[in-house]
């Protein structure tokens, strides 16, 4: 019944700004609605949700700036042709495999609502959120131990959950039966669905006010704007050639094997390709990242256009990069049913491999690598009462230095806050004995990498099991353009005693007993530019602020601080710095390397 609305380009710039503002307001309103009415901590505290408007062809126009996936509607259109869609329909999926990476792990529930005007399909309103528990092998559904997607919760291929405003209750009942926390699920689903309805209503209002042609014109303009901005940046900054970089994940959490993402940025006669086909084979454990082609395109687009606040992440970026090449059965294109729960580890490496390639293409004008956020699970048991305590905490890491600023210290992936110590001690049967900056973990550089943190946790339960995902230990975040790599994290029990022992950092099922002190030390971000170029005052301030030790100030930065610990010895500093001067490589991880392909042996 749907008919295509006419498209008209050529739109008055004031109307354009008004429509753009209205769409952004509507999208922000959708987010606020999810934030206000959702129930689970993941959505509320981590802001783990995404809202977007897509045009009637399913091209992303405005969205949350999270580079997870852009082709959110294609899988739905395959199953349900646009001609058959009706006003009041709502479509739903969470299956990365049947959506071809429209979503990248199972807990993210995608809802899409077509928007009509005078009977014609004009756009889609979309929202997804990360649900707390959708079944699977462990509470919370994501386990580092998963070896199959079937262990990671219920899979929903694209389905029509609402037909012309009529909810399919049966689908809902089947779904909520699969969760350990069905009430929380219902609350969250209701919030996400309501956000889609709100977005649809707002878009209808915009179309009523300005006309469909103006809305389509605004969509086209926004896409064109992003396209042109990215194209001109690539033309300006990247010469024809192949730029390759390989980056590593410590392990897949199930085996001790390390995995790598390999990315080649190829530019030839105006054509741009991103080739990831030489990435490793898919992993046994859940670090596989079923990557939609839009993901690396958006990463490149957002990074290269970041100086222009008017540029939005959207499908305009996709037109600039002609091709993304992946190899079926590889880490970034795994075959069903490879597990996907920890895909962030690989996703963040796709980003850093892209930055590596861009650094080669631009003579170092790209950010250094960031470390991956850390989660640990401590399951304590009281042997007398049988009481169980489950402690799940997210921990911060250091982000990579930027070509214009330091990396950010102590930050989780985006919006997650840490658990206050005073609450953790009440609820988890643990005592936190220290929470500090991991000094010297930020890679030294003209711009310093962000520092990770140290969390000291005393086990008070009779015995406890530890699961943890702490990456960037074997392969610390690399430095760029003369900057050094970040320092590795570690997991150690009873440090400084005769019972001190190191634990694996991507693992589960480690045994701890009452009185053990668990020290989790997280990894820092890479540095950018030569540390010898960092103003000595900034190095001194970092020493005073506890981010850099006096030893590192001397060894890495060539900065000499007087006996009072405050005054700079400028003469000694200049002498030290000139003695240290010399060529430095483009990249650094333990040692400098210039080549595109950091060899695994180099780290071991």
């Amino acid at each position: 019944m749907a008919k295509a609305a006419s498209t008209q380009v050529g739109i008055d710039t004031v109307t354009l700004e008004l429509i753009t503002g209205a769409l952004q307001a509507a999208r922000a309103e959708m987010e606020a609605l999810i934030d206000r009415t959702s129930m689970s901590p993941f959505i509320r505290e981590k802001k783990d949700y995404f809202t977007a408007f897509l045009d009637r062809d399913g091209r992303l126009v405005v969205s949350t700036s999270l580079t997870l996936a852009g082709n959110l509607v294609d899988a739905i259109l395959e199953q349900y042709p646009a001609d058959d869609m009706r006003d009041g329909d709502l479509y739903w999926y969470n299956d990365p495999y049947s959506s071809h990476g429209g979503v990248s792990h199972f807990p993210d529930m995608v809802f899409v609502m077509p928007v009509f005007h005078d009977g014609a399909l004009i756009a889609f309103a979309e929202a997804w959120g990360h649900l707390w528990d959708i079944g699977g092998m462990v509470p919370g559904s994501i386990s580092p131990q998963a070896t199959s997607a079937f262990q990671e919760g219920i899979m929903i291929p694209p389905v029509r959950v609402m037909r012309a405003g009529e909810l399919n209750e049966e689908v809902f009942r089947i779904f909520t039966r699969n969760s350990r926390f069905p009430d929380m699920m219902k609350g969250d689903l209701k919030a996400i669905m309501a956000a889609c309805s709100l977005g649809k209503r707002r878009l209808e209002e915009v179309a009523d006010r300005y006309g469909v042609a103006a809305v389509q014109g605004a969509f086209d303009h926004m896409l064109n704007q992003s396209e042109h901005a990215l194209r001109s940046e690539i033309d300006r900054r990247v010469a024809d050639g192949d730029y390759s970089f390989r980056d590593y994940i410590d392990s897949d959490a199930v085996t001790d094997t390390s995995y790598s993402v390999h990315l080649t940025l190829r530019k030839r006669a105006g054509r741009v390709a991103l080739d990831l086909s030489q990435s490793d084979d898919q992993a046994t454990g859940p670090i596989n990242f079923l990557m939609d082609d839009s993901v690396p395109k958006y990463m490149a687009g957002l990074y290269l256009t970041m100086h222009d606040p008017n540029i939005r992440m959207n499908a305009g970026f996709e037109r600039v990069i002609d091709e993304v090449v992946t190899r079926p059965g590889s880490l970034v294109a795994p075959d069903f049913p490879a597990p996907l729960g920890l895909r962030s580890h690989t996703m963040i490496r796709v980003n850093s491999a892209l930055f590596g390639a861009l650094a080669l293409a631009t003579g170092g004008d790209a950010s250094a690598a960031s470390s991956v956020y850390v989660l640990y699970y401590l399951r304590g048991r009281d042997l007398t009462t049988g009481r169980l305590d489950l402690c799940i905490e997210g921990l911060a890491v250091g982000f990579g230095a930027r070509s214009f600023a330091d990396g950010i210290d102590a930050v989780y992936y985006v919006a997650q806050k840490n658990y206050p110590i005073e609450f953790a001690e009440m609820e988890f049967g643990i005592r936190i004995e220290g929470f500090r900056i991991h000094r010297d973990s930020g890679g030294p550089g003209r711009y310093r990498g962000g520092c990770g943190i140290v969390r000291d946790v005393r086990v008070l339960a009779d015995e406890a099991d530890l699961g943890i995902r702490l990456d960037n230990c074997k392969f610390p975040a690399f430095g760029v353009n003369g900057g050094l790599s970040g320092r590795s994290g570690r997991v150690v029990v009873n440090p400084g005693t005769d019972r001190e022992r190191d634990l694996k950092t991507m693992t589960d099922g480690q045994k701890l007993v009452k009185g053990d002190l668990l020290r989790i030390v997280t990894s820092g971000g890479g540095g950018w530019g030569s540390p010898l170029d960092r103003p000595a005052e900034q190095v001194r301030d970092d020493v005073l602020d506890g981010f850099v030790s006096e030893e590192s100030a001397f060894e890495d930065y060539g900065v000499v601080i007087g006996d009072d610990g405050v005054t700079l010895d400028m003469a000694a500093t200049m002498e030290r710095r000139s003695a240290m001067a010399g060529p430095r490589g483009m990249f650094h991880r333990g040692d400098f390397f210039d080549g595109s392909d950091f060899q695994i042996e180099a780290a071991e």
Partner: protein
Amino acid sequence: MGVRVGVDIGGTFTDFCVFDEEKRDLWTMKVLSTPDRPGTEVMNGLAEIEKRYGVAPADIGYFTHGTTVGVNTVIQRRGITLCLLTTRGFEDVLEVARLKMPDPYDLFSARPEPLVTRDRVFSIDERILFDGTVDLPLDEASVEAAIEGIRSVGGEGVVVALLHAYRNPAHEERVAEILRTRAPDLTVTCASDVWPVIREYERTSTAVVAGYVQGRVAHYLGSLQEALASAGVPAEPMITKSNGGVMTAEIGKSACAQMLLSGTASGVIGAASVAAETGAAAAMSLDIGGTSADVAIIRDGTPQYGVGEMIGEFPIYIPTVSVTSIGEGGGSIAWVDPHGVLKVGPESAGSNPGPACYGRGGTRAAITDAFVVCGFLGQSALGYSAVSMRTDLARKAVGEIADALGKGLEETAESIIHVAVSGMYLEVSKLVSRHGIDPRDLSLIAFGGAGPMMACFFARELGMREVVVPRVPGVLSAFGGLIADIKNDFIRTVYLDMVPGALDEIRSGYAGLRDAATAWIREEHGYDGPVTLLYSADMRYRGQSYEIETAIEAGWIEAGDLDAMAGAFHVAHERIYEHADIDAPVQLINLRLVVVGTPPKPHIAPAETSAAAPVPRATVPVYYDGAHHDAAVYSRAELFAGQSFSGPAIITQDDCTTCMPGGFTATVDAMGNLTLIRED
């Protein structure tokens, strides 16, 4: 009978609102602020008031005052060299913060430099556990070592913030005692005194902001007290608080954390009283100045409260009237971006040079200039004749934008207004959505220099039906201070499951809060009038990481009715999140008590009524909706209660101009408020 004076100091102007108890009349005055010599503007204003209204200092029997001296101290980083003492192992509390990025999606994002740098943090050997028991006794030698450290970095003041001190402040108190004895020149702030609530980062950050501004604020209040006394003002000055109440300046000297956002809060209090007068069940206050717009939600005449409001770059967690600030005001500048798209803000001409039409050297078109070009402004002098309108300069500035866009002059001016309003809509729609309110149900209370100018356009964009312009829109914050209650907040973290065994601790907790509240208002504040105690509790479902503050009745505690408390929480949860789980276990995290003293309120005389039609002073051409219209110009002073007229119209008064396009009808209510109703 005497005179009451409310004063609010803003960045550009200092506002005065004067209430004569005999004539029951309200007067207003504005003088330029003197940021370099804080306090001088108050004395200047009192002199002006004496000149203009014949009010002698000796007549002033009640004096309230809001000031930005605290918040400016933070923004300009002009506080003391502050040190921090923490429990050993947690010295990095300000640097690790809560891990969240300042702006998660901004690749340029950076953390602010803490007010206490890490080299000024010293650790204390001690440990208290979550139940208040002492795990490691205080090692006084570590305090001595910390004092040496403070000396070595030239510290002028110190904040003591130890783990779990909200539960057992003994160690903090002992450390403070040692500091006062051994280093009496240092200012000492204990986090458990400032706001004793669970969450170590939030409590520490709040105390650090408090300790940082303490010296300047106390000094400022002392000078104010002296200046008023030497001028012969008999009233003890009252200071407006972030919670919308007032306290004596004497208390303010040690409780400066409570007055950091006093100006914005008292504006909302003023707006809330207007909402109560007009009977609006839900209202939005819109205070637009030169560089920003402050928006707040008012329900049933009561402002909404929040925690984590920002003081410059730092959050504080004491109860504060929740205000959303948008970086767009009358001085926001219009420009054309490289893609040829018209933008407004965030750059602002502020008050100096100000919009082009001020004729003080501004050459770029600001929002105010667009209103001038459209014919709405320029009908009378602004700001007590301090500024006269240069329409020629406004037209020149807007003309440059028009050339860049290839559009007509007036068309461009209207576009600037639309883009500006649409930008404000973006922020406001988020706020409204967070509150789960339909904007069409809100009454818009518009004030500030540019609020009444933009309000109708804003209301049209949000679909709001009613705009109210108060009697004194230019000085509503000063007015809010005049009518504010004496008010203080008390909190106690308990962390209890809502089971019968918890009752004793709940009762004794509230009893302790009640004693503290009574002592504060009767003894410390010296107030002997009627007092109200408001009880509430922060509750959550077990497993949730956020609480909802829920109002409860004192009778429930006496009767031991925990079900009623939990029931109130379920209802609150349902209202905010649209679902509740009555079978889930409920946790009680904090007990709260607010003590409110209500001094006699000013009884403002009703506006004079008239059955006659209002008489416009002139008719002028205005431009909106793409066409010219004839607008009647009214003087606010010549309007009487009961009078009504339709738009397009312009209503001028001393300190602002109300711009009303067609489609609105204005009515003057019994209290003199101007209500503009939009026809559908």
